[in-house]
């Protein structure tokens, strides 16, 4: 009974007033960093899917025979490249269908010398180095060009991967410093409670009884800070994603707090609260253990 009601700690306002706010800010940072990393991850995934599925090679040669020869050479090279599942030449009607948006509804001259297009399906497992591939293509079939939009995409993908690594390090750093600041703040707060702890101890209160008072107090700090931080983070993410949804832009819309992701974010205050409580408990226990 007294376990619950034994209130021997001063009101926390003056002493640990900062702690929940610090926890809140750190969680806000954590959530935003993790969300950014996750969004870039989603972007990379969808781009890779584009890139991994297929690339296009066009053989631009005026002479039909020569074009056919170079196309065959390119096909042989491509089919021998690891990571390539299949390479097929598009029928000229399909090529015309691709060209028509540019020409509008102009009547198409059957004699128009259109380039040959090769659709290359990748197995999506073995990564294909597009730069090396286009160099080898230039030797085998000088008229063959890898679609450079896709080459560019592959480059941006490299960049995104690097940015993601940076972001993941930032997330790691933020998480670590959150843990450090929570532990540090908790212990700073507890330093001001040394006297009540000592008196309770001398009056014969068991260690567990003393710890319990701190457990609840710091659990509350942690939850309070965690909720504030997460609330702000979710609000910010939601605002950004709402603005983005209209456009459907891949990277930005990935910021939308998905149900899954939100659930994970909501675990963060719980984690923060438990961390705070555990720190308080360990610190108090250690202080008590130093007394006789």
């Amino acid at each position, binding site marked *: *009974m007294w376990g619950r009601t*034994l209130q021997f700690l001063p009101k926390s306002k003056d002493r640990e007033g900062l702690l929940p706010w610090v926890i809140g800010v750190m969680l806000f940072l954590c959530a935003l960093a993790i969300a950014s990393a996750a969004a870039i991850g989603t972007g990379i995934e969808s781009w890779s899917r584009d890139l991994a599925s297929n690339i296009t090679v066009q053989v631009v040669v005026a002479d039909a025979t020569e074009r056919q020869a170079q196309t065959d050479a390119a096909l042989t090279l491509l089919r021998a490249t690891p990571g390539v599942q299949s390479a097929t030449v598009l029928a000229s009607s399909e090529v015309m269908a691709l060209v028509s948006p540019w020409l509008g509804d102009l009547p198409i001259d059957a004699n128009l010398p259109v380039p040959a297009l090769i659709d290359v399906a990748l197995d999506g497992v073995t990564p294909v180095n597009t730069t090396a591939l286009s160099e080898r293509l230039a030797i085998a079939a000088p008229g063959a060009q890898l679609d450079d939009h896709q080459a560019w995409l592959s480059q941006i993908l490299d960049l995104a991967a690097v940015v993601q690594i940076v972001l993941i390090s930032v997330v790691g750093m933020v998480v670590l410093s959150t843990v450090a600041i929570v532990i540090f703040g908790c212990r700073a707060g507890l330093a001001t409670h040394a006297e009540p702890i000592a008196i309770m101890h001398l009056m*014969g209160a068991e260690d567990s009884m003393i710890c319990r008072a701190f457990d609840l107090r710091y659990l509350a700090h942690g939850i309070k800070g965690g909720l504030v931080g997460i609330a702000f983070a979710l609000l910010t993410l939601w605002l950004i994603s709402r603005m983005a949804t209209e456009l459907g832009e891949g990277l930005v819309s990935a910021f939308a707090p998905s149900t899954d992701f939100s659930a994970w974010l909501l675990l963060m205050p719980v984690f923060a609260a438990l961390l705070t409580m555990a720190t308080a408990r360990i610190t108090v226990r250690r202080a008590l253990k130093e007394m*006789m």
Partner: protein
Amino acid sequence: MITFENVGMRYGMGAEILQDVSFTLEKGSFHFLVGPSGAGKTTLLKLLYLAHRPSRGLVDFFGKDLSSLGRDDLPRLRRRIGVVFQDFRLFDHLTAFENVALPLRIKGATKKQVQDHVEELLAWVGLEERLHAKPATLSGGEKQRVAIARAVINKPDLLVADEPTGNVDPEMSQRLMHLFVELNKLGTTTVVATHDENLVSAIGAPVFSLDKGQLSVRPDRGQS
């Protein structure tokens, strides 16, 4: 009930504050502890209220060898000891009432018991009108009386009081000593450290005298 044998005590790596201190407190006895400032009175009392372990020597507490007792056994013992600290050590943010109630609460007394006991005792020490004042708004003597009330509220088996009347007038001082004597008659073993010669001569109990860490015993001068 409590026996010290060749007990020595030092703080950290410093010199020995107490040297070869030996004495026995019989159950229900009453002793004064006197000695010049800095002689080690508070240090000796700290050993008695289990705030420190002695650096050397044997201590027998309620029939058990202190060195054989683990940390977990001590809270139970401490709850049988009431302490008046020289500097009071009240909880600044709790009212006089709440401060005095704490030992009862730690023991798990009911709300009713707490209410009745605490109010009665605070009235006895003349603080019926300051029940809900925080220590910062109490006078020096009022704080000291709250500290005394907190020490005796449990009717402890051992009462340790460090200079318990240094801040009250002679009249109140007598009244408080009367409280100690009454408790002592009910079986509470009592040790009171004091500089007040009047007090010592008024009660006439045996006196432990400390000087430079050496303890000597002056027997009872009659009366008691």
